[in-house]
């Protein structure tokens, strides 16, 4: 059951290519492999924490107090403060990782993949363990798609692209083709 969930979240419902969440960093940080890896790692780290935290807050704070309509504002605050906290924690205790993630950590606050997954977990009425597993699998799917895409974009830089198609335009068409290959997983789960 959990394996099914993991496969579904990584491939079938890939967060970037099938659900269209987190596309700004997808296009913004995919020009270089190095930045793509940094972003992918930062997302895995924060998304798992955020998934757990928001699940706890929703089910133990908002739901019993009938404050479900405050979900959006509560989640975004949790994510923003979580990112700040993680940043401070890493800076003190794991400086190596902190330096590696660099600018990508604060950027995650406005990464709709993180926010989107926390909302999806609630909408699908996942249990605690399911939320944890799904958050992790979605993040891995994000990283996988981002790294694949960055690799392709580095190659495209060397190709001669017609002028109007350059940069974002060709990147989007490329993303469409990657998305098509992920599309083949549909129907598996």
């Amino acid at each position, binding site marked *: 059951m959990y394996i099914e969930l993991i496969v579904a979240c990584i491939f079938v419902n890939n967060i970037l290519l099938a659900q269209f969440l987190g596309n700004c960093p997808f296009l913004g940080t995919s020009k270089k492999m190095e930045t793509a890896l940094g972003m992918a790692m930062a997302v895995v780290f924060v998304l798992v924490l955020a998934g757990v935290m928001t699940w706890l807050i929703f089910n133990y704070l908002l739901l019993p107090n009938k404050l479900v*309509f405050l979900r959006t504002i509560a989640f975004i605050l949790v994510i923003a403060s979580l990112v700040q906290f993680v940043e401070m924690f890493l800076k003190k205790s794991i400086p190596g990782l902190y330096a590696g993630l660099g600018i990508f950590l604060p950027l995650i606050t406005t990464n709709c993949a993180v926010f989107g997954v926390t909302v999806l977990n609630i909408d699908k009425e996942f249990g605690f363990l399911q939320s944890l597993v799904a958050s992790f699998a979605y993040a891995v799917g994000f990283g996988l798609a981002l790294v694949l895409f960055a690799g392709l974009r580095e190659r495209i830089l060397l190709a001669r692209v017609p002028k109007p198609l350059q940069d974002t335009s060709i990147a989007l068409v490329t993303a*469409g083709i990657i998305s098509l290959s992920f599309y083949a997983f549909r129907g598996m789960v």
Partner: protein
Amino acid sequence: MAKSIATEFTKGLWKEVPPFRLVLGLCPVLGVTTSMKNGIGMGLATTFVLLCSNILVSLLRKVIPPKVRIACFIIIIATFVIVVEQVMAAFAYELFMSLGVFIPLIVVNCIVLGRAEAFASKNGVALSAADGLGMGIGFTVSLGLLGAVRELIGTGGLSGDVFGFLPYHLPSIFGAAFQPLEFAVQAPGAFVALGLLLCLMNLIPSK
């Protein structure tokens, strides 16, 4: 160059039209444009949030301490997103369901936060309102256009309404022999359609 309300309004319509020129806020652009109806609905919801948050941020720009401004902006934006969410759930339930997770996601839409940070926190109320409205309408038109293109290719015709009003119905415009290309309304088609629209826009010189 003196800033006038008219220029701030019109720049959002063409020169800096959000999803194409600024390449921001792509998630809803790709996610909800499976039909013109969804595209326009999403665009209008975003316009409302953009306009209100721009006005409020501009009003409070001298009160908000610069150090925590981003957090303040996000809270202001989130408040209006909740308003939109509740109103749509009450009066446009069907649209609300088909837009799904993308309505709460307006809160992390880079365009809304970007305009608050780049424009409303530095300019007066009237200018900020014009900026927000212009950007919002530009965003709505872009989403509607992309949705229309995808719906036409994917299903052969256009039909729907705008928030329950203005119903439109355009059966097949390509003739009976046309086989709808389902690719266009599926996920991969979103990327390709947006990429090609961007390419078309690059072909038209901006002055």
